[in-house]
């Protein structure tokens, strides 16, 4: 573990006498290594290590009997400070319905998360409507309808011949007529570099002015997380992020990368394939996980 490697590093360094700044720099290489192996983006690690170093070359590390523990504490605090600080809740509209848009790369978990979120919001007393906004993927509409029926949750669909902005508009009107106060729009997975499809998302946003746009990101995403998050944020102005598939053993460094580069909070985490597997984000647990 990082704690053990840091202890070994400091043991060697202290055996030569009192610790100095360059000793700490040597030990910090272990932290950098841990963050990169956890898939935190290279540039994000660089910036993060600057902040850590500033605090780590102070007297509470240099004079400490347990410098490794001090450094871990500093790194952990910095991670939690960076990733935390916001409540994991959806921005509710002052006048219903609240409209939520789920966006992200192919296969990230948008459709499954849409259903999970609907279930969660219903438990909180809302009346959600799921909207089948993916008109491209084979059987995408069917997939959302199956999940909706598993939850006994209504699903709005206009088939795959209408365009997503029109579908979103009609879904919002339908929700108003049927007394549903949360509309969750599932969209097709797309590359952030696909001009046409990013424009389509912008068109949906302009049409129905969502209260919440959530970027769904796979926890195993590597260095590319910053490119994806940055582009989606620049085009759409995200409100939050959902990190999925955290029930695996991915360290999840993408969480730090995405937060660092967009400033948008991670609001929920997906922890399984079942529809009850959605939790609010805990920055301290994420920090532990990233540090390994």
């Amino acid at each position: 573990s990082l704690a053990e490697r840091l202890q070994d590093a400091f043991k060697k360094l202290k055996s030569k006498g009192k610790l100095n700044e360059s000793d700490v720099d040597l030990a910090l290489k272990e932290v950098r290594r841990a963050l990169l192996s956890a898939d935190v983006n290279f540039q994000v690690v660089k910036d993060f290590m600057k902040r850590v170093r500033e605090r780590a070359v102070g007297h509470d590390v240099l004079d400490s009997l347990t410098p490794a523990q001090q450094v871990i504490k500093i790194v952990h605090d910095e991670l939690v400070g960076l990733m935390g600080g916001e409540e994991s809740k959806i921005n509710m509209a002052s006048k219903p319905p609240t409209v939520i848009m789920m966006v992200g790369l192919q296969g990230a978990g948008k459709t499954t998360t849409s259903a999970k979120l609907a279930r969660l919001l219903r438990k909180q007393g809302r009346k959600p409507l799921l909207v089948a906004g993916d008109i491209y993927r084979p059987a995408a509409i069917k997939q959302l309808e199956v999940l909706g029926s598993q939850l006994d949750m209504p699903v709005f669909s206009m088939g795959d011949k209408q365009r997503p902005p029109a579908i979103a508009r009609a879904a919002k009107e339908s929700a108003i007529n049927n007394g549903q106060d949360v509309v969750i729009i599932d969209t097709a997975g797309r590359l952030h570099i696909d001009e046409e499809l990013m424009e389509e998302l912008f068109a949906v946003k302009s049409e129905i002015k969502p209260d919440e746009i959530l970027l769904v990101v796979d926890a195993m995403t590597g260095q590319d997380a910053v490119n994806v998050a940055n582009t989606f944020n620049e085009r759409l102005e995200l409100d939050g992020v959902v990190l999925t598939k955290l029930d695996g053993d991915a360290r999840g460094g993408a969480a730090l990368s995405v937060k660092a580069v967009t400033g948008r909070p991670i609001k929920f985490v997906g922890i399984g394939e079942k529809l009850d597997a959605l939790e609010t984000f805990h920055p301290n647990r994420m920090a532990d996980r990233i540090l390994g």
Partner: protein
Amino acid sequence: LVKVRKNIDESLYEELEEIMIEADMGADIAIDLVENLRGEVRQRKIKEAVEVTPLLQELIQDVLGGENQALMLNVPGPVVVMVVGVNGVGKTTTIGKLAYMCKSQGQKVIIGAADTFRAAAIEQLEIWGHRVGVDVIKHQHGADPAAVAYDSLQAAKARNADVLIIDTAGRLHTKSNLMEELKKIYRVLRREIPEAPHETLLVLDATTGQNAISQAKLFNEAIDLTGIVLTKLDGTAKGGVIIGINESLNIPVKLIGIGEGLDDLRVFDAGEFAAALFT
């Protein structure tokens, strides 16, 4: 991607190391490759900065084994291809594309819909089968995947299919009960045809970071992988993690996915892959 320079200096090596890390090759591998590169630059007495990156590409290409490792589809049929991987990486879509590729080469293809778990997985695969014009063998949702695999193989034999491609449900490699299910499918196929499955392909998403190594390791321990399909290379991710997988597990990349259409599947080319890391 590499800045134009006059001299071979430390900043060049640092820049190359950064590019490799950002390509998801992993810090340790990037550092090792830079060390090898320094040695080669000295040995070959290279003086021009512009010659360094092509040399690094050459070193990477060497690691990837040089010859392109095609699918072994030239044995008497049916050749059985089992497709596995974690959730959402592109298994089902890849199977549609692979069926199309084989059919275009004159082969009779059958698909086995052994993902009986995920919502509308069977319907999704049936649409692909319809697009390509190949039969899809399926049971009802919730059926035993091994039973579907078994029936698909019987159908492939009875209909004289050249290739049988079996779709499986996405599963995290850390879930031992799901890995056991995969082993059972493998055993069922092996009992019917001693060399089956002839190909066990792990589908990896190019956007995946270092976790891909854990995925490859555990799927390989469960069912002895013969190759990797690296998908979503049409994005900005480089998929550099396959270099580490090649080095530590000796599993070659055989195919790459470069889009969501029927035709977006290519045979892996190490030279092109190495070059793309730096562009």
